[in-house]
């Protein structure tokens, strides 16, 4: 039995309770390696491919196409070819019964909480139980749930916190003067408040600039940087998108702008627009988005310049950039080559961590592994 690996419905985001298999990418009997895409999953939020947790042969497809499957329930069975068919049948029967009975124990889920930094509440979601600390910092208008495809796989090896920056998610909506310093202090203050001596920072877009600023300001606290389409390393930025996002007052106004986020425009779903409007309609969000917009933009160019800060850091740096990024275009990556290991991702737009999460997971892992062990005090 121990040779059989149960492939289970992942928990992509805090609110996900069920998902559906919409397409099998691997047929029964086919051999796969760990990290290969096994199947396509659709949740009420987003669709994505599930990577194989191990190598072996896909022995059984347990879930039916389009059947609602609770998080943690078995979708498929992987095992080496030599595991006898009877054993697989037995495991498949048990899995199927469990699924039909709905008797899936709710996975523990992330630890959710808030800490107070500079008088602001900072919300976080922690996954994983051991290993190096990783902190995920979202971009403009995003929140900790945007890491849904990245946080879970990383949490099998690391202790991974996704946080909401001030003005975002469930954190306090006040952003002070909206400067990068306020946001960077929120990150370093978060580490201090949580008793994290040193963390690997992963930042997307504005969050990338925040991570760089945090690393420059508090080098002892930051072990490595993984930057996904970071803002402010070059001058190019899609000012129309940012303004459109900030100004949209309805789903109808917002939705057209969201297609700029993805290489595959079908990912800009009505549900995504609804969720973003839910956020934008919280009291205080308008003001914070406008304050941050003033930081992000100088006319139609980037209003922040973090390349010099990045040069001043000494930590390993990995950069992941979607080739189809229409918000912070990949042209900004020129000039980073001497400071960072840049991965250009085809078939990804600005949200590379949603469209090609495995590339981001690999980059983070690489950054962590490249970090020299901390000297004992």
């Amino acid at each position: 039995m121990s040779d059989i690996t149960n492939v289970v419905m992942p928990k992509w985001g805090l609110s996900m309770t069920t998902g559906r298999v919409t397409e099998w990418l691997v047929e029964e009997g086919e051999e796969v390696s760990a990290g290969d895409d096994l199947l396509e999953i659709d949740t009420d939020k987003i669709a994505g491919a599930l990577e194989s947790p191990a190598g072996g042969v896909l022995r059984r497809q347990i879930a039916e196409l389009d059947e609602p499957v609770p998080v943690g329930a078995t979708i498929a069975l992987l095992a080496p070819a030599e595991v006898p068919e009877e054993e697989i049948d037995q495991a498949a029967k048990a899995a199927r019964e469990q699924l039909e009975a709905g008797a899936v124990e709710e996975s523990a889920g992330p630890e959710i909480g808030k800490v107070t930094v500079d008088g602001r509440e900072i919300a976080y979601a922690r996954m994983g139980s051991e290993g190096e600390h990783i902190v995920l910092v979202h971009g403009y208008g995003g929140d900790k749930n945007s890491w849904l495809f990245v946080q879970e796989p990383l949490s099998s090896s690391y202790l991974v916190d996704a946080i909401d920056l001030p003005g975002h998610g469930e954190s306090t909506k006040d952003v002070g003067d909206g400067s990068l310093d306020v946001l960077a202090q929120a990150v370093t203050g978060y580490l201090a408040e949580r008793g994290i001596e040193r963390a690997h920072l992963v930042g997307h877009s504005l969050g990338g600039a925040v991570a760089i600023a945090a690393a420059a300001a508090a080098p002892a606290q930051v072990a490595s940087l993984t930057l996904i389409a970071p803002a402010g390393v070059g001058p190019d930025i899609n000012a129309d998108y940012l303004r459109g996002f900030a100004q949209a007052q309805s789903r109808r106004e917002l939705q057209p702008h969201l297609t700029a986020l993805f290489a595959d425009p079908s990912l800009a779903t009505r549900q995504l627009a609804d969720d973003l409007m839910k956020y934008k309609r919280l009291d205080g969000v308008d003001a914070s988005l406008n304050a941050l917009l003033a930081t992000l933009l100088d006319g139609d160019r980037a209003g922040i310049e973090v390349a010099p800060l990045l040069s001043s850091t000494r930590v390993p740096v990995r950069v992941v950039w979607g080739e189809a990024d229409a918000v912070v275009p990949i042209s900004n990556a020129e000039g980073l080559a001497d400071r960072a290991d840049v991965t250009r991702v085809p078939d990804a737009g600005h949200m590379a961590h949603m469209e090609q999460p495995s590339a981001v997971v690999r980059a983070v892992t690489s950054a962590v592994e490249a970090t020299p062990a901390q000297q004992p005090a």
Partner: protein
Amino acid sequence: MARMISYREAINEALALEMRRDPSVIVMGEDNAGGASAGSPGEEDAWGGVLGVTKGLYGEFPDRVLDTPISESAFIGAAVGAATAGLRPVAELMFIDFMGVCFDQIFNQAAKFRYMFGGKAVTPVVIRTMYGAGLRAAAQHSQVLYPLFTHIPGLKVVVPSNPYEAKGLLIQAIRDDDPVIFCEHKALYDMQGDVPEGAYVIPFGEANVVRDGDDVTIVALGRMVSYASEAAEELAGTGVDAEIIDPRTTSPLDTETIIESVERTGRLVVVDESNPRCSVARDISAIVAEEAFGALKAPIQVVTAPHTPVPFSDVLEDLYIPSTQDIVNAVKTATDWKR
């Protein structure tokens, strides 16, 4: 998020947040404080409205939560008058059925001021009222009368379907400068839902697409939204993919979202717990027939209560209220229809 609170708590929280934010917001109604504020010898804040929706507000805002005599004409009128004089009153008309004794103050006064006075009046009054069948409360405490208010120019009419919607729509109602009738389904008060702690607004006139689908558009209001969702799950098992639209407000009405959906699905089922004649269901049907006739692949189906008063006896009331099965059947009629 993931903070579950009830529809009742969501409404209470919206009131508390707005009263904290804006000192011009006041709350009034029968038993709204209920207790010492009205001179009773018992607990200070005994009731908080007949179903406890305003419970706790009097303790925090003793000068701005007012009990009233059972004089709906007087206090609904007073709320309207106070709204013209700089306050933002939220008056509770306990049961929507009681509009019969105070309708003049709503539809001849509040609704007309702005137009009749040449655009000079601002009347930001909210009238919260509970509606709907299901509590064995019979003919005078169970009606679904939002169509009557929807008919009146000058009023805005809100029909929230869950706790998240109730909070955001009520905050919008309080901040809105026009008179708003806020219709709370009494069978939803204990419904739990995920609601952010802070204040947020849901704008009027923007329908919520509750579920995406390509085969049929179900427009449902208030309590009927959950019924439609149940029906859609059942239909999904038979290969019918239903889109569900919750208009949230019947006035203004987001016809654009409804028509766009019908143009894609070609079929429309409207679910409205009110009586059928001159109902919101028939109004939406007529609008779609006028504006998207060419897109229709089947006759529009309407699921409503029958043209009767609400009966008392369990068995009769259960028959009276549109059911999930009624919705499934209506969808099947639409999808099976052949020219």
